[in-house]
Protein backbone atom coordinates (compact mmCIF):
# COMPACT_ATOMS: atom_id res chain seq x y z
CA UNK A 1 0.00 0.00 0.00
CA UNK A 2 2.88 2.29 0.71
CA UNK A 3 4.38 1.34 -2.57
CA UNK A 4 2.75 3.89 -4.71
CA UNK A 5 3.47 6.80 -2.46
CA UNK A 6 7.06 5.88 -1.91
CA UNK A 7 7.81 5.10 -5.48
CA UNK A 8 9.71 8.18 -6.63
CA UNK A 9 12.16 8.08 -3.75
CA UNK A 10 12.63 4.42 -3.00
CA UNK A 11 12.54 3.26 -6.56
CA UNK A 12 14.99 5.83 -7.80
CA UNK A 13 18.12 3.83 -7.50
CA UNK A 14 16.53 0.60 -8.59
CA UNK A 15 15.17 2.08 -11.76
CA UNK A 16 18.61 2.72 -13.10
CA UNK A 17 19.64 -0.80 -12.44
CA UNK A 18 16.66 -2.48 -13.93
CA UNK A 19 16.44 -2.15 -17.65
CA UNK A 20 13.24 -2.63 -19.65
CA UNK A 21 10.50 -2.34 -17.08
CA UNK A 22 8.33 -5.07 -18.52
CA UNK A 23 7.55 -8.77 -18.25
CA UNK A 24 8.19 -11.00 -15.26
CA UNK A 25 7.24 -8.90 -12.32
CA UNK A 26 4.85 -6.38 -13.72
CA UNK A 27 2.06 -8.82 -14.68
CA UNK A 28 1.98 -9.92 -11.09
CA UNK A 29 1.17 -6.43 -9.93
CA UNK A 30 -0.91 -5.31 -12.83
CA UNK A 31 -3.24 -8.24 -12.95
CA UNK A 32 -2.86 -9.87 -9.60
CA UNK A 33 -5.69 -12.43 -9.58
CA UNK A 34 -4.99 -14.31 -12.84
CA UNK A 35 -1.22 -14.32 -12.35
CA UNK A 36 -1.33 -15.82 -8.91
CA UNK A 37 -3.47 -18.68 -10.15
CA UNK A 38 -0.58 -20.85 -11.21
CA UNK A 39 2.23 -18.85 -9.70
CA UNK A 40 1.13 -19.37 -6.15
CA UNK A 41 3.84 -21.95 -5.56
CA UNK A 42 5.90 -20.19 -2.87
CA UNK A 43 3.63 -20.81 0.08
CA UNK A 44 4.70 -17.74 1.91
CA UNK A 45 4.31 -15.16 -0.79
CA UNK A 46 3.31 -11.90 0.76
CA UNK A 47 -0.37 -11.70 1.44
CA UNK A 48 -2.38 -9.17 -0.53
CA UNK A 49 0.74 -7.47 -1.68
CA UNK A 50 -0.28 -4.40 -3.57
CA UNK A 51 -3.57 -3.12 -4.69
CA UNK A 52 -3.00 -2.77 -8.41
CA UNK A 53 -2.96 0.87 -9.42
CA UNK A 54 -5.37 1.99 -12.10
CA UNK A 55 -3.58 0.93 -15.23
CA UNK A 56 -1.57 3.99 -16.07
CA UNK A 57 -0.07 5.06 -19.32
CA UNK A 58 3.05 3.02 -18.78
CA UNK A 59 3.68 -0.10 -16.71
CA UNK A 60 5.45 0.52 -13.42
CA UNK A 61 9.05 -0.62 -13.25
CA UNK A 62 9.64 -3.99 -11.59
CA UNK A 63 10.53 -2.47 -8.29
CA UNK A 64 10.40 -4.04 -4.93
CA UNK A 65 7.97 -2.80 -2.41
CA UNK A 66 8.84 -2.58 1.24
CA UNK A 67 8.33 -5.75 3.21
CA UNK A 68 5.02 -5.42 4.98
CA UNK A 69 5.06 -6.03 8.67
CA UNK A 70 1.57 -6.20 10.06
CA UNK A 71 0.09 -6.71 13.47
CA UNK A 72 -1.31 -10.21 13.89
CA UNK A 73 -5.04 -10.19 14.41
CA UNK A 74 -7.48 -12.99 14.78
CA UNK A 75 -4.95 -15.73 15.40
CA UNK A 76 -6.31 -18.06 18.05
CA UNK A 77 -3.02 -19.01 19.58
CA UNK A 78 -1.48 -15.55 19.54
CA UNK A 79 -4.57 -14.23 21.30
CA UNK A 80 -4.15 -16.95 23.89
CA UNK A 81 -0.54 -15.95 24.51
CA UNK A 82 -1.44 -12.28 24.73
CA UNK A 83 -4.18 -13.04 27.20
CA UNK A 84 -1.95 -15.18 29.36
CA UNK A 85 1.16 -13.03 29.39
CA UNK A 86 -0.36 -9.61 29.03
CA UNK A 87 2.15 -6.81 29.01
CA UNK A 88 5.14 -9.19 28.88
CA UNK A 89 4.42 -9.62 25.18
CA UNK A 90 5.53 -6.38 23.64
CA UNK A 91 4.99 -7.14 19.96
CA UNK A 92 3.16 -9.67 17.83
CA UNK A 93 3.71 -9.09 14.14
CA UNK A 94 3.80 -11.05 10.93
CA UNK A 95 6.33 -10.36 8.20
CA UNK A 96 6.46 -12.36 4.99
CA UNK A 97 3.88 -14.65 6.58
CA UNK A 98 6.15 -15.49 9.49
CA UNK A 99 4.91 -14.79 12.97
CA UNK A 100 7.13 -12.97 15.41
CA UNK A 101 6.46 -12.65 19.11
CA UNK A 102 8.61 -10.30 21.14
CA UNK A 103 8.75 -10.95 24.83
CA UNK A 104 10.32 -9.37 27.90
CA UNK A 105 13.51 -10.94 29.09
CA UNK A 106 12.03 -11.92 32.45
CA UNK A 107 9.15 -13.84 30.89
CA UNK A 108 11.14 -15.65 28.21
CA UNK A 109 11.47 -19.01 29.96
CA UNK A 110 7.89 -18.91 31.13
CA UNK A 111 6.64 -18.17 27.65
CA UNK A 112 8.84 -20.85 26.09
CA UNK A 113 7.64 -23.42 28.56
CA UNK A 114 4.07 -22.50 27.75
CA UNK A 115 4.76 -22.77 24.02
CA UNK A 116 6.43 -26.11 24.50
CA UNK A 117 3.93 -27.69 26.87
CA UNK A 118 0.72 -26.46 25.29
CA UNK A 119 -1.11 -29.60 24.26
CA UNK A 120 -2.81 -28.19 21.25
CA UNK A 121 -0.04 -26.12 19.75
CA UNK A 122 3.09 -27.61 21.30
CA UNK A 123 6.14 -25.98 19.73
CA UNK A 124 8.28 -29.01 20.39
CA UNK A 125 11.13 -28.36 17.97
CA UNK A 126 13.59 -25.54 18.58
CA UNK A 127 14.69 -25.15 14.99
CA UNK A 128 17.16 -22.37 15.49
CA UNK A 129 18.53 -20.00 18.09
CA UNK A 130 20.68 -17.08 17.16
CA UNK A 131 21.27 -13.40 17.87
CA UNK A 132 21.49 -10.07 16.08
CA UNK A 133 23.55 -7.14 17.25
CA UNK A 134 21.99 -3.67 17.07
CA UNK A 135 24.59 -1.31 18.52
CA UNK A 136 23.13 1.67 20.27
CA UNK A 137 19.56 0.48 20.38
CA UNK A 138 17.73 1.69 23.43
CA UNK A 139 15.70 -1.38 24.29
CA UNK A 140 18.81 -3.56 24.37
CA UNK A 141 21.73 -4.02 22.03
CA UNK A 142 21.13 -7.65 21.20
CA UNK A 143 18.17 -9.59 19.94
CA UNK A 144 18.14 -13.28 20.77
CA UNK A 145 16.03 -14.92 18.07
CA UNK A 146 14.49 -18.35 18.54
CA UNK A 147 12.80 -20.08 15.62
CA UNK A 148 10.32 -22.70 16.74
CA UNK A 149 8.37 -25.33 14.88
CA UNK A 150 5.32 -27.20 16.00
CA UNK A 151 5.28 -30.77 14.74
CA UNK A 152 1.64 -31.46 15.65
CA UNK A 153 0.42 -28.24 14.06
CA UNK A 154 3.08 -27.92 11.35
CA UNK A 155 3.50 -24.22 11.93
CA UNK A 156 6.40 -22.06 12.93
CA UNK A 157 6.92 -19.06 15.14
CA UNK A 158 9.77 -16.76 16.00
CA UNK A 159 10.38 -15.56 19.52
CA UNK A 160 12.56 -12.52 20.04
CA UNK A 161 13.96 -11.11 23.20
CA UNK A 162 16.06 -8.00 23.63
CA UNK A 163 19.17 -8.33 25.78
CA UNK A 164 21.07 -5.21 26.87
CA UNK A 165 24.84 -5.14 26.68
CA UNK A 166 26.49 -6.73 29.69
CA UNK A 167 23.35 -8.44 30.88
CA UNK A 168 22.45 -12.08 30.59
CA UNK A 169 19.66 -13.86 28.79
CA UNK A 170 17.77 -16.69 30.47
CA UNK A 171 18.66 -20.05 28.93
CA UNK A 172 16.02 -22.22 27.30
CA UNK A 173 18.07 -25.41 27.48
CA UNK A 174 15.82 -26.70 30.23
CA UNK A 175 12.98 -26.72 27.71
CA UNK A 176 14.76 -27.70 24.50
CA UNK A 177 17.97 -29.60 25.08
CA UNK A 178 18.89 -28.86 21.48
CA UNK A 179 19.38 -25.20 22.31
CA UNK A 180 22.54 -26.13 24.19
CA UNK A 181 25.07 -25.80 21.39
CA UNK A 182 23.20 -22.95 19.76
CA UNK A 183 23.39 -20.91 22.96
CA UNK A 184 27.04 -21.78 23.27
CA UNK A 185 27.55 -20.50 19.76
CA UNK A 186 25.76 -17.24 20.53
CA UNK A 187 27.87 -16.86 23.65
CA UNK A 188 30.98 -17.56 21.61
CA UNK A 189 30.29 -15.19 18.75
CA UNK A 190 28.28 -12.45 20.51
CA UNK A 191 29.37 -12.69 24.12
CA UNK A 192 25.85 -12.99 25.50
CA UNK A 193 25.74 -14.84 28.79
CA UNK A 194 23.00 -17.40 29.18
CA UNK A 195 21.74 -17.75 32.69
CA UNK A 196 21.08 -21.35 33.67
CA UNK A 197 23.03 -22.90 30.82
CA UNK A 198 24.62 -26.16 31.98
CA UNK A 199 27.89 -25.83 30.12
CA UNK A 200 28.54 -22.35 28.75
CA UNK A 201 31.87 -22.52 26.97
CA UNK A 202 33.12 -21.29 23.64
CA UNK A 203 32.36 -23.79 20.93
CA UNK A 204 33.66 -22.67 17.55
CA UNK A 205 36.54 -20.44 18.56
CA UNK A 206 39.49 -21.32 20.79
CA UNK A 207 39.05 -20.81 24.52
CA UNK A 208 41.42 -17.85 24.67
CA UNK A 209 40.20 -16.04 21.59
CA UNK A 210 40.05 -12.27 22.05
CA UNK A 211 36.60 -10.77 21.61
CA UNK A 212 33.38 -11.90 20.01
CA UNK A 213 33.51 -11.68 16.22
CA UNK A 214 29.86 -11.25 15.29
CA UNK A 215 29.56 -7.99 17.20
CA UNK A 216 29.36 -5.12 14.81
CA UNK A 217 32.32 -3.27 16.26
CA UNK A 218 34.63 -6.25 15.81
CA UNK A 219 36.92 -5.66 12.83
CA UNK A 220 37.52 -8.57 10.53
CA UNK A 221 40.97 -7.89 9.22
CA UNK A 222 44.13 -8.85 11.04
CA UNK A 223 42.29 -9.71 14.21
CA UNK A 224 43.73 -13.20 14.29
CA UNK A 225 47.30 -11.96 14.38
CA UNK A 226 47.42 -11.55 18.12
CA UNK A 227 46.23 -15.05 18.75
CA UNK A 228 48.38 -16.54 16.02
CA UNK A 229 51.49 -14.84 17.31
CA UNK A 230 50.85 -16.22 20.72
CA UNK A 231 50.26 -19.81 19.68
CA UNK A 232 52.10 -20.30 16.43
CA UNK A 233 55.18 -18.46 17.46
CA UNK A 234 57.10 -17.08 14.53
CA UNK A 235 60.73 -17.99 14.69
CA UNK A 236 63.56 -16.82 12.52
CA UNK A 237 65.25 -19.74 10.87
CA UNK A 238 68.63 -19.14 9.41
CA UNK A 239 68.28 -20.46 5.90
CA UNK A 240 71.07 -20.14 3.44
CA UNK A 241 69.08 -18.11 0.96
CA UNK A 242 71.98 -17.34 -1.28
CA UNK A 243 71.30 -20.49 -3.27
CA UNK A 244 67.64 -19.78 -3.80
CA UNK A 245 66.41 -17.09 -6.10
CA UNK A 246 63.49 -16.11 -3.93
CA UNK A 247 63.27 -12.98 -1.95
CA UNK A 248 61.92 -13.60 1.50
CA UNK A 249 59.91 -10.74 2.82
CA UNK A 250 59.94 -9.74 6.41
CA UNK A 251 56.76 -10.50 8.25
CA UNK A 252 54.90 -7.22 8.73
Amino acid at each position, binding site marked *: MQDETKEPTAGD*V*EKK*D*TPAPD*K*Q*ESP*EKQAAPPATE*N*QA*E*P*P*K*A*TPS*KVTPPAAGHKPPP*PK*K*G*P*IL*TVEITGDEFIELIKQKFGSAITETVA*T*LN*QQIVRVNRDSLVELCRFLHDNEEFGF*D*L*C*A*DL*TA*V*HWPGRESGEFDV*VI*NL*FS*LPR*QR*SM*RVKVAVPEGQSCPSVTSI*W*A*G*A*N*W*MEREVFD*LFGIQFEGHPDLR*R*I*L*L*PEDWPGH*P*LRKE*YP*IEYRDNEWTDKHLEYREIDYDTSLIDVKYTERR
Partner: protein
Amino acid sequence: MQNQEVTKDPGTLFDAEEMVLNMGPQHPSTHGVLRVVLKLDGETVVDLDCDVGYLHRGVEKIAESDNYAMITPYWDRLDYVAAVSGDLCYVGGVERLLQVEVPKRAEYLRVILTELQRIASHLLWLGTHAIDIGAVTVLLYCFREREEILKIFEDFIGARLTAHAFRIGGLWWDIYPEFEKRVRDFLAILPDRIEEYETLLNTNRIWLSRTVGIGVLPAEDAINLSVTGPVLRGSGVKYDIRKAMPYSAYRDFDFEIPLGENGDTYDRYLVRMAEMRQSASIIEQALDGLPEGPVMAKVPKVLKPPAGEIYHAIEAPKGELGVYLVSDGTGKPYRMRIRPPSFINLQSLKRMSIGHLVADVVALIGTIDIVLGEVDR
Protein backbone atom coordinates in the same frame (compact mmCIF):
# COMPACT_ATOMS: atom_id res chain seq x y z
CA MET B 1 38.03 -56.52 53.20
CA GLN B 2 40.77 -57.71 50.95
CA ASN B 3 38.93 -56.61 47.85
CA GLN B 4 38.61 -53.10 49.13
CA GLU B 5 42.30 -52.89 49.75
CA VAL B 6 43.05 -54.05 46.23
CA THR B 7 40.85 -51.44 44.59
CA LYS B 8 42.46 -48.69 46.60
CA ASP B 9 45.91 -49.60 45.36
CA PRO B 10 46.80 -47.09 42.64
CA GLY B 11 49.54 -49.19 41.13
CA THR B 12 47.62 -51.99 39.46
CA LEU B 13 46.32 -51.81 35.95
CA PHE B 14 42.91 -53.33 36.47
CA ASP B 15 41.60 -51.00 39.11
CA ALA B 16 41.47 -48.07 36.75
CA GLU B 17 37.87 -46.96 36.85
CA GLU B 18 37.60 -44.53 34.01
CA MET B 19 39.88 -43.53 31.24
CA VAL B 20 39.82 -40.54 28.94
CA LEU B 21 40.47 -41.23 25.29
CA ASN B 22 41.07 -38.62 22.67
CA MET B 23 39.65 -39.44 19.26
CA GLY B 24 40.69 -37.09 16.52
CA PRO B 25 41.03 -34.37 15.36
CA GLN B 26 42.88 -36.30 12.69
CA HIS B 27 41.05 -39.57 12.93
CA PRO B 28 39.99 -41.07 9.59
CA SER B 29 36.50 -41.97 10.71
CA THR B 30 35.59 -38.54 12.04
CA HIS B 31 35.08 -37.35 8.44
CA GLY B 32 37.21 -34.28 8.88
CA VAL B 33 38.67 -32.45 11.81
CA LEU B 34 36.38 -33.41 14.64
CA ARG B 35 37.80 -34.16 18.05
CA VAL B 36 35.80 -36.40 20.33
CA VAL B 37 36.86 -36.80 23.94
CA LEU B 38 35.58 -40.07 25.32
CA LYS B 39 35.37 -41.11 28.92
CA LEU B 40 35.57 -44.87 29.00
CA ASP B 41 34.81 -47.57 31.50
CA GLY B 42 36.66 -50.45 29.96
CA GLU B 43 35.46 -50.26 26.42
CA THR B 44 32.11 -48.71 27.23
CA VAL B 45 31.51 -45.02 26.67
CA VAL B 46 30.49 -43.27 29.88
CA ASP B 47 30.68 -39.69 28.72
CA LEU B 48 31.52 -37.88 25.56
CA ASP B 49 32.38 -34.37 24.53
CA CYS B 50 32.73 -33.06 21.00
CA ASP B 51 35.31 -30.43 20.23
CA VAL B 52 34.44 -28.64 17.02
CA GLY B 53 35.56 -25.45 15.36
CA TYR B 54 38.80 -26.47 13.71
CA LEU B 55 37.43 -25.41 10.33
CA HIS B 56 35.77 -22.22 11.50
CA ARG B 57 36.08 -19.59 8.79
CA GLY B 58 33.58 -17.05 10.00
CA VAL B 59 31.27 -17.20 7.01
CA GLU B 60 28.56 -15.32 8.86
CA LYS B 61 30.95 -12.46 9.54
CA ILE B 62 32.29 -12.45 6.01
CA ALA B 63 28.73 -12.23 4.70
CA GLU B 64 28.21 -8.92 6.45
CA SER B 65 30.82 -7.28 4.24
CA ASP B 66 29.83 -8.92 0.94
CA ASN B 67 26.92 -8.11 -1.29
CA TYR B 68 24.11 -10.61 -1.73
CA ALA B 69 25.33 -12.18 -4.95
CA MET B 70 28.88 -12.60 -3.65
CA ILE B 71 27.76 -14.72 -0.73
CA THR B 72 26.36 -17.63 -2.75
CA PRO B 73 29.71 -19.37 -3.34
CA TYR B 74 30.35 -19.50 0.39
CA TRP B 75 27.30 -21.72 0.70
CA ASP B 76 28.90 -24.24 -1.62
CA ARG B 77 31.74 -24.53 0.81
CA LEU B 78 29.69 -25.26 3.89
CA ASP B 79 28.38 -28.69 3.06
CA TYR B 80 30.73 -29.30 0.19
CA VAL B 81 29.33 -32.70 -0.67
CA ALA B 82 25.85 -31.20 -1.09
CA ALA B 83 26.69 -27.78 -2.42
CA VAL B 84 23.60 -27.44 -4.58
CA SER B 85 21.34 -27.77 -1.55
CA GLY B 86 23.22 -24.98 0.18
CA ASP B 87 22.76 -22.75 -2.84
CA LEU B 88 19.05 -23.45 -2.94
CA CYS B 89 18.66 -22.47 0.69
CA TYR B 90 20.46 -19.16 0.43
CA VAL B 91 19.08 -18.19 -2.95
CA GLY B 92 15.55 -19.04 -1.82
CA GLY B 93 15.94 -16.88 1.27
CA VAL B 94 17.14 -13.86 -0.69
CA GLU B 95 14.40 -14.29 -3.27
CA ARG B 96 11.78 -14.23 -0.57
CA LEU B 97 13.28 -11.05 0.83
CA LEU B 98 13.35 -9.51 -2.61
CA GLN B 99 9.84 -10.82 -3.27
CA VAL B 100 10.93 -12.18 -6.61
CA GLU B 101 8.83 -14.75 -8.40
CA VAL B 102 11.16 -17.36 -9.87
CA PRO B 103 10.08 -18.81 -13.25
CA LYS B 104 8.54 -22.23 -13.01
CA ARG B 105 11.05 -23.85 -15.33
CA ALA B 106 13.88 -22.67 -13.11
CA GLU B 107 12.13 -24.05 -10.04
CA TYR B 108 11.72 -27.45 -11.68
CA LEU B 109 15.34 -27.54 -12.77
CA ARG B 110 16.36 -26.55 -9.26
CA VAL B 111 14.39 -29.46 -7.87
CA ILE B 112 16.03 -31.84 -10.34
CA LEU B 113 19.52 -30.66 -9.43
CA THR B 114 18.87 -30.62 -5.69
CA GLU B 115 17.43 -34.12 -5.70
CA LEU B 116 20.36 -35.37 -7.76
CA GLN B 117 22.56 -33.78 -5.14
CA ARG B 118 20.63 -35.55 -2.41
CA ILE B 119 21.29 -38.87 -4.09
CA ALA B 120 24.97 -38.00 -4.48
CA SER B 121 25.23 -36.97 -0.85
CA HIS B 122 23.51 -40.10 0.38
CA LEU B 123 25.73 -42.24 -1.83
CA LEU B 124 28.83 -40.65 -0.36
CA TRP B 125 27.39 -41.12 3.09
CA LEU B 126 26.62 -44.78 2.42
CA GLY B 127 30.08 -45.50 1.09
CA THR B 128 31.95 -43.83 3.92
CA HIS B 129 29.60 -45.13 6.58
CA ALA B 130 30.09 -48.66 5.30
CA ILE B 131 33.85 -48.27 5.13
CA ASP B 132 33.86 -47.01 8.73
CA ILE B 133 32.15 -50.18 9.82
CA GLY B 134 34.34 -52.38 7.69
CA ALA B 135 32.46 -53.02 4.45
CA VAL B 136 34.96 -51.66 1.97
CA THR B 137 33.31 -52.79 -1.25
CA VAL B 138 30.26 -50.55 -1.02
CA LEU B 139 32.33 -47.40 -1.28
CA LEU B 140 33.60 -48.34 -4.70
CA TYR B 141 30.12 -49.03 -6.02
CA CYS B 142 28.70 -45.85 -4.52
CA PHE B 143 31.39 -43.72 -6.07
CA ARG B 144 30.64 -45.26 -9.45
CA GLU B 145 27.10 -43.87 -9.36
CA ARG B 146 28.09 -40.64 -7.68
CA GLU B 147 30.52 -40.01 -10.49
CA GLU B 148 27.64 -40.08 -12.96
CA ILE B 149 25.86 -37.34 -11.02
CA LEU B 150 28.99 -35.27 -10.74
CA LYS B 151 29.51 -35.54 -14.48
CA ILE B 152 25.98 -34.30 -15.07
CA PHE B 153 26.75 -31.38 -12.78
CA GLU B 154 30.05 -30.71 -14.43
CA ASP B 155 28.53 -30.51 -17.88
CA PHE B 156 25.68 -28.31 -16.76
CA ILE B 157 27.20 -26.09 -14.11
CA GLY B 158 30.88 -26.39 -14.81
CA ALA B 159 31.93 -27.67 -11.43
CA ARG B 160 31.68 -31.01 -9.74
CA LEU B 161 31.60 -30.23 -6.05
CA THR B 162 31.39 -26.53 -5.26
CA ALA B 163 28.75 -26.01 -7.84
CA HIS B 164 27.40 -22.49 -7.40
CA ALA B 165 24.44 -23.84 -9.29
CA PHE B 166 21.86 -21.10 -8.90
CA ARG B 167 21.57 -17.40 -9.33
CA ILE B 168 19.35 -15.18 -7.29
CA GLY B 169 16.22 -15.14 -9.41
CA GLY B 170 16.70 -18.38 -11.32
CA LEU B 171 19.48 -20.23 -13.07
CA TRP B 172 22.59 -19.12 -14.85
CA TRP B 173 21.53 -20.74 -18.10
CA ASP B 174 19.13 -23.24 -19.51
CA ILE B 175 19.95 -26.92 -19.74
CA TYR B 176 21.90 -28.31 -22.64
CA PRO B 177 20.06 -30.58 -25.10
CA GLU B 178 21.32 -33.89 -23.76
CA PHE B 179 20.74 -33.07 -20.12
CA GLU B 180 17.36 -34.75 -19.90
CA LYS B 181 18.54 -37.90 -21.59
CA ARG B 182 21.54 -38.20 -19.33
CA VAL B 183 19.49 -37.75 -16.19
CA ARG B 184 16.96 -40.28 -17.43
CA ASP B 185 19.72 -42.75 -18.25
CA PHE B 186 21.05 -42.35 -14.76
CA LEU B 187 17.62 -42.83 -13.24
CA ALA B 188 17.17 -45.98 -15.29
CA ILE B 189 20.18 -47.65 -13.73
CA LEU B 190 19.79 -46.28 -10.21
CA PRO B 191 17.14 -48.66 -8.80
CA ASP B 192 19.19 -51.70 -9.77
CA ARG B 193 22.27 -50.18 -8.27
CA ILE B 194 20.53 -49.40 -4.98
CA GLU B 195 19.43 -53.02 -4.88
CA GLU B 196 23.02 -53.99 -5.45
CA TYR B 197 24.12 -52.09 -2.33
CA GLU B 198 21.31 -53.62 -0.39
CA THR B 199 22.32 -57.15 -1.35
CA LEU B 200 25.77 -56.31 -0.08
CA LEU B 201 24.53 -54.97 3.23
CA ASN B 202 21.03 -56.05 4.21
CA THR B 203 21.94 -59.68 4.74
CA ASN B 204 25.49 -59.02 5.82
CA ARG B 205 25.75 -60.33 9.36
CA ILE B 206 28.58 -58.03 10.33
CA TRP B 207 26.67 -55.01 9.04
CA LEU B 208 23.56 -56.05 10.92
CA SER B 209 25.32 -56.71 14.19
CA ARG B 210 27.06 -53.36 13.99
CA THR B 211 23.99 -51.32 13.15
CA VAL B 212 20.84 -52.97 14.52
CA GLY B 213 20.10 -51.65 17.98
CA ILE B 214 23.12 -49.36 18.02
CA GLY B 215 22.64 -45.71 18.92
CA VAL B 216 18.91 -45.83 19.54
CA LEU B 217 17.47 -42.32 19.60
CA PRO B 218 13.86 -42.30 20.81
CA ALA B 219 11.53 -39.90 19.05
CA GLU B 220 11.02 -37.58 22.06
CA ASP B 221 14.76 -37.24 22.60
CA ALA B 222 15.35 -36.61 18.93
CA ILE B 223 12.80 -33.79 18.87
CA ASN B 224 14.07 -32.32 22.10
CA LEU B 225 17.62 -32.31 20.76
CA SER B 226 16.48 -30.39 17.65
CA VAL B 227 17.61 -33.23 15.43
CA THR B 228 16.31 -33.01 11.87
CA GLY B 229 16.62 -34.82 8.59
CA PRO B 230 17.04 -38.56 8.13
CA VAL B 231 18.18 -38.94 11.74
CA LEU B 232 14.85 -37.59 13.00
CA ARG B 233 12.86 -39.58 10.48
CA GLY B 234 14.79 -42.70 11.43
CA SER B 235 13.22 -42.28 14.86
CA GLY B 236 9.78 -42.30 13.26
CA VAL B 237 9.00 -38.58 13.36
CA LYS B 238 7.31 -37.38 10.21
CA TYR B 239 9.01 -34.07 9.57
CA ASP B 240 10.22 -33.21 6.13
CA ILE B 241 10.36 -29.54 5.20
CA ARG B 242 9.58 -30.41 1.59
CA LYS B 243 6.14 -31.36 2.89
CA ALA B 244 5.84 -29.24 6.02
CA MET B 245 6.78 -25.88 4.50
CA PRO B 246 7.00 -26.54 0.76
CA TYR B 247 9.57 -24.37 -0.94
CA SER B 248 10.64 -24.14 -4.58
CA ALA B 249 8.36 -26.40 -6.63
CA TYR B 250 8.00 -29.28 -4.18
CA ARG B 251 4.28 -28.75 -3.89
CA ASP B 252 3.86 -30.13 -7.40
CA PHE B 253 5.38 -33.53 -6.76
CA ASP B 254 4.03 -36.61 -5.19
CA PHE B 255 6.42 -38.43 -2.91
CA GLU B 256 6.53 -40.20 0.39
CA ILE B 257 8.47 -39.53 3.55
CA PRO B 258 10.27 -42.73 4.53
CA LEU B 259 10.20 -43.34 8.27
CA GLY B 260 12.08 -45.65 10.58
CA GLU B 261 10.65 -47.41 13.58
CA ASN B 262 13.33 -48.10 16.14
CA GLY B 263 15.55 -45.09 15.69
CA ASP B 264 18.72 -47.12 15.51
CA THR B 265 21.58 -46.93 13.07
CA TYR B 266 20.04 -49.55 10.83
CA ASP B 267 16.76 -47.65 10.54
CA ARG B 268 18.57 -44.48 9.60
CA TYR B 269 20.33 -46.48 6.91
CA LEU B 270 16.98 -47.75 5.60
CA VAL B 271 15.50 -44.25 5.62
CA ARG B 272 18.31 -42.88 3.52
CA MET B 273 18.10 -45.75 1.06
CA ALA B 274 14.37 -45.17 0.68
CA GLU B 275 14.97 -41.44 0.30
CA MET B 276 17.20 -42.05 -2.68
CA ARG B 277 14.36 -43.91 -4.37
CA GLN B 278 11.94 -41.10 -3.57
CA SER B 279 14.39 -38.55 -4.93
CA ALA B 280 14.62 -40.52 -8.16
CA SER B 281 10.84 -40.46 -8.40
CA ILE B 282 10.75 -36.70 -7.82
CA ILE B 283 13.33 -36.12 -10.54
CA GLU B 284 11.32 -38.26 -12.94
CA GLN B 285 8.16 -36.28 -12.21
CA ALA B 286 10.00 -33.02 -12.64
CA LEU B 287 11.45 -34.09 -15.97
CA ASP B 288 8.03 -35.22 -17.18
CA GLY B 289 6.38 -31.98 -16.23
CA LEU B 290 9.24 -29.64 -17.08
CA PRO B 291 7.58 -26.44 -18.31
CA GLU B 292 8.89 -24.27 -21.07
CA GLY B 293 9.83 -20.66 -20.50
CA PRO B 294 12.59 -18.48 -19.15
CA VAL B 295 14.92 -19.64 -16.39
CA MET B 296 15.71 -16.26 -14.94
CA ALA B 297 13.42 -13.74 -13.32
CA LYS B 298 13.94 -10.07 -13.81
CA VAL B 299 16.08 -8.97 -10.91
CA PRO B 300 18.02 -5.75 -10.59
CA LYS B 301 21.76 -5.92 -11.09
CA VAL B 302 22.34 -4.44 -7.67
CA LEU B 303 20.40 -6.42 -5.14
CA LYS B 304 19.01 -4.32 -2.34
CA PRO B 305 16.29 -6.17 -0.50
CA PRO B 306 13.99 -3.90 1.47
CA ALA B 307 14.50 -3.82 5.21
CA GLY B 308 13.09 -6.91 6.81
CA GLU B 309 13.93 -10.40 7.90
CA ILE B 310 13.28 -13.94 6.82
CA TYR B 311 13.97 -17.44 8.07
CA HIS B 312 14.06 -19.77 5.11
CA ALA B 313 14.69 -23.45 5.64
CA ILE B 314 15.04 -26.32 3.21
CA GLU B 315 15.37 -30.05 3.57
CA ALA B 316 19.03 -30.61 2.80
CA PRO B 317 20.37 -34.17 2.62
CA LYS B 318 21.55 -33.82 6.21
CA GLY B 319 18.53 -32.13 7.71
CA GLU B 320 17.04 -28.70 8.09
CA LEU B 321 19.35 -26.21 6.45
CA GLY B 322 18.16 -22.72 7.19
CA VAL B 323 19.16 -19.15 6.61
CA TYR B 324 18.05 -16.26 8.78
CA LEU B 325 18.59 -13.07 6.87
CA VAL B 326 18.18 -9.60 8.28
CA SER B 327 18.26 -6.84 5.72
CA ASP B 328 18.57 -3.15 6.51
CA GLY B 329 17.84 -2.07 2.96
CA THR B 330 21.45 -1.86 1.83
CA GLY B 331 23.28 -4.10 -0.58
CA LYS B 332 24.82 -6.21 2.15
CA PRO B 333 22.97 -8.37 4.65
CA TYR B 334 22.88 -6.90 8.11
CA ARG B 335 23.04 -10.38 9.55
CA MET B 336 23.14 -13.79 7.99
CA ARG B 337 22.71 -16.80 10.20
CA ILE B 338 23.32 -20.26 8.84
CA ARG B 339 21.31 -22.95 10.56
CA PRO B 340 23.58 -25.92 9.98
CA PRO B 341 21.97 -29.37 10.21
CA SER B 342 25.25 -31.21 10.80
CA PHE B 343 26.21 -29.02 13.74
CA ILE B 344 22.92 -29.38 15.52
CA ASN B 345 22.52 -33.08 14.74
CA LEU B 346 26.00 -33.71 16.11
CA GLN B 347 24.70 -32.81 19.56
CA SER B 348 22.81 -36.08 19.61
CA LEU B 349 26.06 -38.06 19.41
CA LYS B 350 26.39 -37.92 23.18
CA ARG B 351 22.87 -39.18 23.72
CA MET B 352 23.41 -42.01 21.24
CA SER B 353 26.86 -43.12 22.30
CA ILE B 354 26.60 -43.48 26.04
CA GLY B 355 26.49 -47.15 26.95
CA HIS B 356 27.93 -48.32 23.66
CA LEU B 357 31.44 -49.42 22.79
CA VAL B 358 34.21 -47.23 21.45
CA ALA B 359 33.96 -48.95 18.09
CA ASP B 360 30.31 -47.96 17.89
CA VAL B 361 31.14 -44.28 18.21
CA VAL B 362 32.70 -44.56 14.78
CA ALA B 363 29.48 -46.01 13.41
CA LEU B 364 27.44 -43.33 15.16
CA ILE B 365 29.45 -40.42 13.79
CA GLY B 366 28.83 -41.97 10.41
CA THR B 367 25.12 -42.40 10.93
CA ILE B 368 24.56 -38.75 11.84
CA ASP B 369 26.17 -37.84 8.52
CA ILE B 370 28.19 -34.77 9.35
CA VAL B 371 30.32 -32.60 7.14
CA LEU B 372 32.78 -30.59 9.15
CA GLY B 373 32.75 -27.71 6.70
CA GLU B 374 29.18 -27.14 7.75
CA VAL B 375 29.63 -27.92 11.43
CA ASP B 376 32.32 -25.28 11.83
CA ARG B 377 31.32 -22.79 9.13
